[in-house]
C-alpha cells in the first residue's frame, strides 16, 4: 500500500483531488486476505470520463460478485497529479485499497478510442510496470485489454499479454479461473499464455504469432509460432442478455462526471448497417433485454444509487422493440420518486420525438440529430437510412412542441464526397433555421440556434469502409473552410474536429504491428491525453514517425485493395469480409442496403439470434 501521508501531501496540491480517493457509494472494498485473484480495471483516461463508461460498471460488479475475486479501479492521473506522483515517487495505485497497481494479478484496459493509447503506456510506467510484454515476468500483473478498439489489436501488440476480443462478461471470469488454477500449482507466464490461447475463444496472445511483410509494406503472412494455436480468433458474444450478469448497482461519484446518471443497456447490436460504423458491425447480432428484466434492474439501480435519471443507452435506443411499453412502465413506476428517463440518441422521426415529449415534460433542452452527411446521395453511400423529409418532419415537429435549439452531427471526408455534398451541411443547417422562422411569430418558442458539428471521417476496421483512404489533412481543411466560409448567420454555428487528431486516429485505428513503436516513441516524447486538444502534440507524433521511418499516409490515406491482407483479418467479428466488400461496392454505387430487421441482408453472422424474430 502506498504511503498515506505522501498521498495526502500531493492531494493538497492537485486540482480535483476527489478524482483519486475512491470511497464512493457502492464502491466494493474487499479484505485482501479473502481474495485469491485481484483485478485492476483501467479506463485510460481521467476519472470523470472513465466513470461514465458503462462497461466498467458491468465488469467491476461482475468480478466483485465472485467471493474470491476482487476488482478495483485505475484511471489516468491528470497531468498535475502525474507531476506530483513522479516528484514524490508515488507509484500508481488503485482507488479502492490504495494498493500499488503492480501488486495486482491482472491489469485490464478498456480500449474505447485510439487516442487514449499513450495514456496506457503512461499508466504502466507510473505503476512501475515494464511497458513491453516481453519485459514482464511473473512478478508483474498480466496486462490485458479489451473493448471495441481491441478488434485491431496489433498497434498495441508489444504492450499487451492478452487481448480479449468481443464481449467481456464470460471470458473475463474464465481467464481469472484459469489463472487461479495456474497460480495454485505455480504460475509460469509463458505456460499460462499458451494454454489460454490454445483453449479459450475470444483470446489473442500476440507474442505467440508473427507477421511477415511484402516489399510494398503490406502484410505477406501471419503465422503462429507454435502448433495448436488457432489461425482465426472468434469474437466472444453473450447469447442471452436476460440471464447475463447485469449490474444492480453503480458507483456514484462525488464529483460531477460526464454521464451523471444511471445507465441501462436495452440491447446490444444494431440493425441499420451504417457503413462507417464499427459498433454497428462488431456488436451484431442484435440481442434485447426483456422489459421485465429491465424493470427489475431499474428498480434495483434506483434504490442503490439515489440517482434521479435513467439513461436508456444502446447503439440506437429508439430501435428497442418494446420502447413505448418500457418508457411508460418506467414513468409510472418512478413517478412519485421524481426519477426521469432520458434517451442519449434520437432517430430522425416524429415517433422518437413523441417519446421524448413524454419523458422531458418540464425542460426542453436542445435536440441532437445525426444526418451524418449533407446530401441525400452521400447519405445513401453511407447507408444512413434517413432522408431530408425525415429531418424536416422531425425538426418541424420539435419546434411545434417547443424545442428551439438543434444540433446536427456530420462527418466530412466520407467516400465519394464532393464539394457539393460538403455544402449540404450548410444547406441543412440553413434549412433548419428557415423551418423555425417560417413559423408564425406567435408559435416560435424559445431562443433559436442551430449548431452543425463536423468530425473528420476515420475509416475503421471491420466496416465496409475499412479499405478506404482517409482524406489528407489539407483536403479536410479545404472542406472545412468551404463550409465555414459559407455560413454567415449568427444563429448558425459550425464546429469541427481537428483533422490532425483524426489523421493520427486513422493511422492507429488501421495500423499494424509497426505502429506500436510509434505509440511508444510518441509517449517517450511526452504525448498523453491526446484526445484532449490542450494536450495533443501533433509535432511529437510526426517526429516519432519520421524517426522510425514510418509513413503515416501508408496507413491513413492509402486506398487498400480487396486482395490485401489487412492487419486485423485474423479476427472474426461476425459479419464476413465478403459482406463488407459487397457493402463497399454498393456504397460507391450509391446503393442502399435495408435495415436487417426488415429481412436478413446476409452479413454472414453464424446463428444470428434474430433470424427467427425478423424472418
Amino acid at each position, binding site marked *: 500500500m502506498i504511503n498515506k501521508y505522501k498521498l495526502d501531501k500531493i492531494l*493538497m496540491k492537485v486540482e480535483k*483531488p*476527489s478524482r483519486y480517493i475512491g470511497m464512493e457509494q457502492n464502491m466494493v472494498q474487499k479484505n485482501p486476505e479473502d481474495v485469491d485473484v485481484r483485478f485492476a480495471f483501467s479506463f485510460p483516461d481521467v476519472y470523470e470520463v472513465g466513470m461514465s463508461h458503462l462497461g466498467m460498471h458491468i465488469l467491476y460488479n461482475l468480478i466483485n460478485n465472485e467471493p474470491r475475486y476482487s476488482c478495483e479501479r485505475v484511471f489516468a492521473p491528470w497531468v498535475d497529479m502525474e507531476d506530483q506522483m513522479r516528484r514524490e515517487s508515488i507509484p500508481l495505485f488503485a482507488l479502492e485499497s490504495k494498493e500499488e497497481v503492480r501488486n495486482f494479478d491482472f491489469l485490464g484496459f478498456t480500449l474505447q478510442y485510439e487516442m487514449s493509447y499513450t495514456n496506457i503506456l503512461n499508466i504502466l510506467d507510473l505503476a512501475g510496470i515494464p511497458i513491453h510484454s516481453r519485459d514482464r515476468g511473473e512478478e508483474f500483473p498480466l496486462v490485458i485489454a479489451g473493448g471495441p478498439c481491441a478488434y485491431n489489436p496489433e498497434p498495441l501488440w508489444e504492450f499487451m499479454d492478452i487481448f480479449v476480443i468481443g464481449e467481456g462478461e464470460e471470458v473475463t471470469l474464465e481467464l481469472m479461473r484459469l489463472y487461479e488454477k495456474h497460480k495454485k500449482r505455480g504460475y509460469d507466464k509463458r505456460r499460462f499464455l499458451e494454454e489460454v490461447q490454445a483453449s479459450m475463444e475470444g483470446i489473442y496472445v500476440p507474442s505467440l504469432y508473427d507477421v511477415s511483410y511484402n516489399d510494398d509494406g503490406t502484410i505477406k503472412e501471419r503465422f503462429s509460432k507454435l502448433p495448436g494455436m488457432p489461425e482465426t480468433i472468434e469474437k466472444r458474444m453473450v447469447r442471452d442478455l436476460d440471464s447475463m450478469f447485469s449490474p444492480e448497482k453503480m458507483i456514484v461519484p462525488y464529483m460531477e462526471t460526464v454521464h451523471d446518471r444511471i445507465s441501462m443497456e436495452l440491447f446490444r447490436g444494431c440493425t441499420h448497417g451504417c457503413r462507417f460504423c464499427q459498433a454497428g458491425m462488431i456488436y451484431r447480432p442484435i440481442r434485447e433485454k426483456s422489459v421485465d428484466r429491465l424493470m427489475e434492474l431499474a428498480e434495483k439501480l434506483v434504490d442503490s444509487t439515489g440517482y434521479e435519471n435513467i439513461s436508456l443507452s444502446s447503439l440506437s435506443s429508439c430501435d428497442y422493440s418494446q420502447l413505448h411499453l418500457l418508457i411508460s412502465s418506467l414513468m409510472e413506476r418512478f413517478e412519485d420518486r421524481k426519477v426521469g428517463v432520458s434517451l442519449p440518441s434520437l432517430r430522425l422521426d416524429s415517433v422518437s420525438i413523441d417519446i421524448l415529449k413524454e419523458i422531458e415534460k418540464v425542460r426542453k433542452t436542445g435536440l441532437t440529430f445525426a444526418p451524418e452527411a449533407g446530401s441525400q446521395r452521400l447519405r445513401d453511400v453511407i447507408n444512413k437510412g434517413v432522408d431530408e423529409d425525415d429531418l424536416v418532419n422531425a425538426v418541424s415537429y420539435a419546434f411545434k412542441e417547443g424545442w428551439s435549439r438543434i444540433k446536427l452531427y456530420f462527418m466530412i471526408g466520407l467516400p465519394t464526397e464532393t464539394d457539393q455534398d460538403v455544402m449540404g451541411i450548410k444547406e441543412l443547417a440553413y434549412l433548419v433555421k428557415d423551418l423555425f422562422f417560417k413559423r408564425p411569430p406567435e408559435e416560435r418558442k424559445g431562443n433559436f440556434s442551430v449548431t452543425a458539428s463536423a468530425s473528420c471521417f476515420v475509416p475503421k476496421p471491420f466496416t465496409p469502409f475499412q479499405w478506404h483512404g482517409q482524406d489528407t489533412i489539407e483536403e479536410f481543411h479545404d472542406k472545412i473552410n468551404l463550409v465555414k466560409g459559407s455560413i454567415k448567420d449568427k444563429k448558425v454555428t459550425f464546429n469541427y474536429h481537428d483533422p490532425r487528431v483524426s489523421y493520427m486516429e486513422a493511422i492507429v485505428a488501421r495500423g499494424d504491428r509497426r505502429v506500436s513503436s510509434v505509440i511508444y516513441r510518441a509517449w517517450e516524447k511526452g504525448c498523453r491525453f491526446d484526445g484532449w486538444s490542450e494536450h495533443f502534440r501533433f509535432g511529437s507524433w510526426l517526429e516519432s514517425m519520421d524517426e522510425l521511418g514510418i509513413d503515416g499516409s501508408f496507413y491513413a490515406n492509402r486506398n487498400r485493395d480487396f486482395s490485401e491482407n489487412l492487419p486485423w483479418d485474423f479476427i472474426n467479428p461476425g459479419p464476413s469480409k465478403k459482406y463488407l466488400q459487397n457493402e463497399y461496392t454498393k456504397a460507391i454505387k450509391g446503393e442502399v442496403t435495408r435495415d436487417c430487421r426488415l429481412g436478413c441482408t446476409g452479413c454472414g453472422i453464424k446463428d444470428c439470434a434474430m433470424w427467427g424474430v425478423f424472418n
Partner: protein
Amino acid sequence: MILRTRFTKVGYLKYLSHLDMVRLFTRTFSKAGIPIKFSEGFNPHPKFSIGNPLPLGTESLAEYMDVELAEKISPDSFIERMNKSLPEGIQLVECKMIEKSTSLTSIIAWSHYEIRFVSGKIGGDVDIEKSLSKWDSIPQVHITKKKKKGKKKVERQLDIKPLIGNVIYKGMDDEDFHTLSALLRSGESGNLKPIELVEAMERELDLGIDLDMVMIKRLEVFANEDGEIKELA
C-alpha cells in the same frame, strides 16, 4: 420546520469540495426519503445550507447544516435515515429543531482546530514552549492576503493577532507528528485559515515545519454573543 444538524467530514472525504458536498446531500435526501422542502420555480432544488465551507483537505468534527422540511420528522429519525446512506467519513452526529434559520455563516464566529505537522527542529534546536511565549509577546503579525477584485488581483496586509484566540502545544504522537490546538476567528466578520497561522508562525519562529505536511481538523465551532464565545444555539 428546520433541522440544524452537525456532521463530520473525515478521512479521504476531506477532499470533497463544497459542491461535491451539496450534491452528496441532495442525493442522500432523496435516497433516504427525507421530506425536504424544495424551492419554487423552474428548476426546484432542495432547501438546505451548509455553514462555513471548509478549505479542501481539512477534516472536521463540527460541520453544520440547516435543512428545511416539508413535513415533520423527528431529529433522531432524520439522523438514522441519513446515516444509513451517507459514507463513513460523513456522518450526522447531532440534530435539533430550530425555530428560525439565522444563517449559519453569520452565527459561527470561532473555530477550534487541531493542527498536526512534522518538524525537524522541535525538541532539538527549538524549545516549543519558549517559542510560543515569544509568539504571544509579538504585538502584531502581518500576513499578505490576496484578493481578486474583478479582474485585478489585490494584495493587502493583515494583522492576524486579533483573529487568534489561543495557540497551545499539545505534544508529539507516535507517528512523529506535533500537535497544536488553535482557536481562530471564523466566518463573515473575520476569518483566519489554520494554514495561514502555521505559515506565519513558521516565518516568525523558525520552527522547522514542513509546510507541505500540515494536517488540519476542525474540532468545534462557536458563536459570538455580545463578545462572549458561546456554543452554537
